[in-house]
């Protein structure tokens, strides 16, 4: 009944030389022992509280015992928490590991280092209620708004304004300087080492490096400009940027203006790296994603951030005099900003651009293999961007391609694959563009006014020759399917739905027409099954 079993009492009795303790006595003593234990612990907790601690130590128990005029238990006082070990074979029996200490060892051992002496250091926990971001303070999540307010307050007081800029230079402690030197050295000399990876982790998580941010941003800008020919360094620099952006404790916004040009450089530079074999494509992709993530995170603070970025990128994209590598970077950059941007900025220019790209990709027109490869890269990037955009659209209308008539699809699909197996469809497609557009409009009108039958009939017949109308028909037919279902819910909703669906349908159609079946891989699996 008490947590101290009477067997324990008997064992203790034996250990102090009382051999024949009657069981009744043990039974009576057990609860009292438990009570006394609790009493001592209660006093020990008091002592702990007055020592301003929240962890009970052996010292506290000793003081509690001395409060009750009991001899303290010797041998347990130590600064460290006691390490208990589980006795082998028992579930809840523990003992303290107490090793034998050989005197000789102790005497021979060199003197241990003297422990550091107690000292007091002072720092500002808060200045007028605002915590300064110094290493002594715990990291604060949002140091942005109030500190800025305060600055503006201070600057109102005349005469004091000048002092305000000064602190930045003085903040850097020796440790921080060492840290900075080490990191920059690693970045430039050994970007492949494991140590550098550790450094990146530290950059991404450390709370005390805020004072270094201006130095890092300057270093990155400087180094990117200097080592455009050195791909590994560029990559390392971009990784550093990413780590800095990830760090939740630093306040990087004031330095974005310095970082963004470097990032964009790594996206759309004409030449990155010195050797042909260098995989500068990866760097472009990486930096493009980086730029996009900056836009996503700080876009709401700086409204013109994204617009400036897209302007730079679209300029690079639409300028035929720029190199293909630059085009590639621009496309990746835009694609990373999301399907919305692609739909708005890339797709309208897709057709003329592909016409431009076409000759570069063909063996007979572009003799330089290097150039041709680049052109195919760009083509791939475009396809990917457009495809993602399409995927995104289609996702909005999951019912879009639900199959009203399986047979039609099968046959059309077969036609499509057979015709498009040849790898030069774009010329034909672009030639046939105008009639198709008209047709699509026709179809739309047809479906809206006359109903389903007419349009459905007209489409396959008109487009079967080229084998490309099927995808537009996909849009159309499914529109009908949806329209048919929704008919009773009201004409306004219906019209809206049709319009949206038609958009997606058109998109698919024109993309298919431009890219061939490559684009089909971006349609969700469910729909895919109808096509292939």
């Amino acid at each position: 009944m008490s947590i101290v079993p009477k067997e324990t009492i008997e064992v203790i009795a034996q250990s102090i030389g009382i051999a024949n303790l009657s069981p009744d006595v043990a039974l009576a003593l057990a609860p009292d022992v438990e009570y006394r234990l609790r009493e001592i612990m209660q006093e020990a907790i008091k002592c702990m509280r007055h020592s301003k601690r929240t962890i009970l130590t052996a010292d506290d128990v000793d003081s509690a015992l001395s409060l009750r005029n009991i001899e303290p238990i010797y041998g347990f006082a130590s600064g460290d928490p006691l390490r208990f070990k589980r006795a082998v074979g028992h579930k809840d029996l523990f003992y303290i590991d107490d090793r034998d200490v050989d005197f000789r060892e102790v005497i021979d051992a060199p003197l241990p280092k003297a422990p550091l002496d107690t000292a007091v250091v002072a720092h500002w926990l808060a200045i007028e209620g605002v915590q300064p971001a110094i290493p002594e303070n715990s990291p604060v999540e949002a140091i942005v708004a109030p500190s800025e307010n305060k600055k503006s307050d201070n600057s109102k007081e005349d005469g004091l304004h000048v002092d305000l800029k000064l602190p930045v230079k003085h903040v850097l402690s020796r440790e921080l300087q060492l840290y900075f030197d080490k990191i920059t050295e690693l970045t430039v000399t050994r970007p492949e080492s494991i140590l550098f990876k550790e450094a990146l982790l530290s950059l991404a998580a450390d709370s005390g490096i805020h004072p270094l941010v201006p130095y890092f941003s300057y270093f990155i800008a400087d180094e990117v400009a200097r080592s455009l020919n050195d791909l590994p360094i560029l990559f390392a620099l971009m990784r550093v940027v990413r780590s800095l952006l990830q760090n939740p404790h630093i306040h990087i916004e004031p330095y974005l203006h310095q970082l963004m040009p470097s990032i964009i450089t790594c996206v759309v530079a004409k030449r990155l790296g010195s050797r042909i074999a260098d995989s500068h494509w990866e760097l472009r992709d990486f930096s493009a994603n980086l730029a996009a993530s900056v836009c996503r995170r700080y876009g709401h603070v700086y409204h013109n951030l994204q617009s400036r970025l897209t302007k730079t990128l679209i300029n690079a994209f639409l300028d035929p005099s720029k190199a293909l590598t630059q085009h590639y970077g621009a496309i990746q950059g835009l694609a990373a900003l999301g399907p919305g941007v692609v739909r708005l900025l890339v797709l309208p220019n897709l057709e003329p651009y592909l016409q431009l790209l076409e000759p570069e990709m063909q063996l007979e027109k572009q003799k330089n293999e290097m150039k041709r490869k680049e052109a195919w890269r760009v083509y791939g990037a475009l396809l990917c961007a457009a495809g993602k955009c399409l995927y995104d659209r289609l996702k909005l209308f999951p019912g879009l391609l639900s199959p009203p008539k399986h047979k039609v699809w099968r046959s059309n699909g077969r036609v499509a694959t057979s015709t498009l197996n040849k790898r030069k469809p774009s010329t034909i497609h672009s030639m046939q563009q105008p009639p198709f557009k008209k047709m699509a409009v026709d179809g739309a009108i047809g479906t809206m006014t006359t109903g389903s039958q007419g349009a459905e009939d007209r489409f396959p017949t008109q487009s079967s020759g080229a084998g490309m109308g099927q995808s537009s028909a996909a849009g159309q037919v499914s529109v009908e399917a949806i329209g048919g279902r929704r008919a009773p819910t009201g004409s306004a909703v219906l019209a809206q739905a049709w319009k949206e669906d038609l958009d997606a349908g058109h998109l698919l159609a024109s993309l298919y027409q431009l890219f061939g079946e490559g684009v089909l891989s971006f349609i969700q699996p469910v729909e895919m099954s109808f096509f292939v």
Partner: protein
Amino acid sequence: MEEEEIQKAVVAYLRKKGFTNTELALQEEQNRVSFSSNSDHSVSRLENGPVRYSDGYSKLRLWAYSSLDLYKHELLRVLFPVYIHCFMDLVAGGHVHEARIFFHTFREDHESMHLRDLQKLEGILSPLHLEEIELSRSFRQNKFKIKMCEYSYDLLLQYLQKTQSFTMRGVINEHIDFEVSPGQPTLSSGDADFVTIEGRKNDLARQINQKEIHWGLLEDSLEQHLERPVSDSEKAEILIPVNSLIQKRPLDGGKQGIPVKMVKKDKLVSMVGKNVRSETSAVSVAPRVKPELTLPATLVEVEQAILEDLRSRVQLNNLALPSISFYTFINTCNRLNCSSISQDGSLVAGGFSDSSLKVVWDISTIGQLVKTSSLQGEKESAKNENFPATEERRKPYTLFHGHSGPVYSTTFSPFGEFLLSSSSDSTIRLWSTKLNTNLVCYKGHNYPVWDVQFSPVGHYFASSSHDRTARIWSMERIQPLRIMAGHLSDVDCVQWHANCNYIATGSSDKTVRLWDVQSGECVRIFIGHRSMILSLAMSPDGRYMASGDEDGTIMMWDLSSGRCVSPLVGHSSCVWTLAFSCEGTLLASGSADCTVKLWDVTASTRASRMESKSSSSNRLRLLKALPTKSTPVYTLQFSRRNLLFAAGALSKCS
């Protein structure tokens, strides 16, 4: 026979008139009478007692939990007292094993509200222990008081009558007083207010709390000195050329470790603030009081210095928060027990568990080092940094040896020339910071002295101890002047009232008491905390008191009424220290959860004056939480200029 006749007539009368409540009450009363007359028999019935208790309780519990939602929370309040007393009855009856089982079966229900009480009661294993534990004694001797609405009360009575469970009825009758209020049931929030231990202790408290107390400030205080010239020559004051002030400032500013820039700004603010203060002081209409103790005379220079400080005080309010300078003790190996900071922040003392006392000097230079290296680019930085380099060999602190046990508390005299320390060796020692030596050893307590505090004017000090007393001393006598006895457990902390006529003590018995220094009488008892009280602070206007406990709750008390103005909830661990800003608008609290929190006092007291008890206003009052880097905050001290100093020992979380 006649009696029965009368009773019948009465019942019939009540029934006729429709006084059903009265009728029930009457029947209840009769039952009680009959029960108490039967109590002799009940002893014999205890054979099957244990089962009746747990059965009765579980039935009551089931019924309370399944009652109507509207009245449920009121009925649930009954459960805890019944639970406790059932358990104690069982123990008292010798059914220890059954009591254990009963205790653990229903323990979970009450853990959230009464964890600490349960922990204490858990240890009770024999009838003897009941006598030994204060808590159980106080439960036994006093009655719980439960407020509930009429209908809930009726429901309870009906239940008790219907089920014929005499045990439960007996427990309820014996140990619970109902305060039945007409109308709707009260809101379910704030259960604590409705279940209180009533009885002798509370009667006593009520009685005591009716005594008159004069919480006004001392007449002829320095603050008044200050205010008078201000109101007289308000314009002249403002016209003082700013230049002259700035010239004076760097000297003091350097000493206090305040950046020059800040002080200048403080200056401007305080100019504006002064008008505000004179208004507020007009609002608080407490008559000034004469000191009961003979106060030591203050030196003219000291007075001048204080006046200077008061003049350059920053006005703090919920918009203008203080700057906080934090002194971190490093390499303490968890041995730092307490620390204190002198009024001007230039001295820091730490009491250690190895009986030593370390007084750190030159905090001004330490402060300056930090300042110059990280905050302020001053020209003198180069010069200053040369200084410690030459003196680095010297220890940065003075070691005071003398105690023979862990030092639990230290306090600086108001002007920093003396230091008091209290220790587990049951002595208090007075040290001189000028001579670096021990002056006096005060022996009087019989057990460890938990806390010692200088009075606001110096010379006198108060101590509190494990021997359940608080004592008042004067520096020149080695015997205490007064002994305040009355607490039921350790007196854990002590604090002087602003006018030096009262001291407040916080105890492990979860009460705070206010004592008259002159008569040594207890003049107020503040009941409401749920765990031991660790820190106390008095507002500078003398009207309010704040107390912080082990659970992290801070309570603000109105001294004149003895009521809790409002609980301030926010800390998650022990509140080690509390401090009011000099004009009393802010309360700072430091806690083991490694934060300093700033609370708006004006809002909280105003809200209570308007008697708006909505919980939303409760939340509003936390102005700011400032986390430290794994440093529990041991002490807080507002300087006369309203710069907040804080100290703590860096404890690495393992």
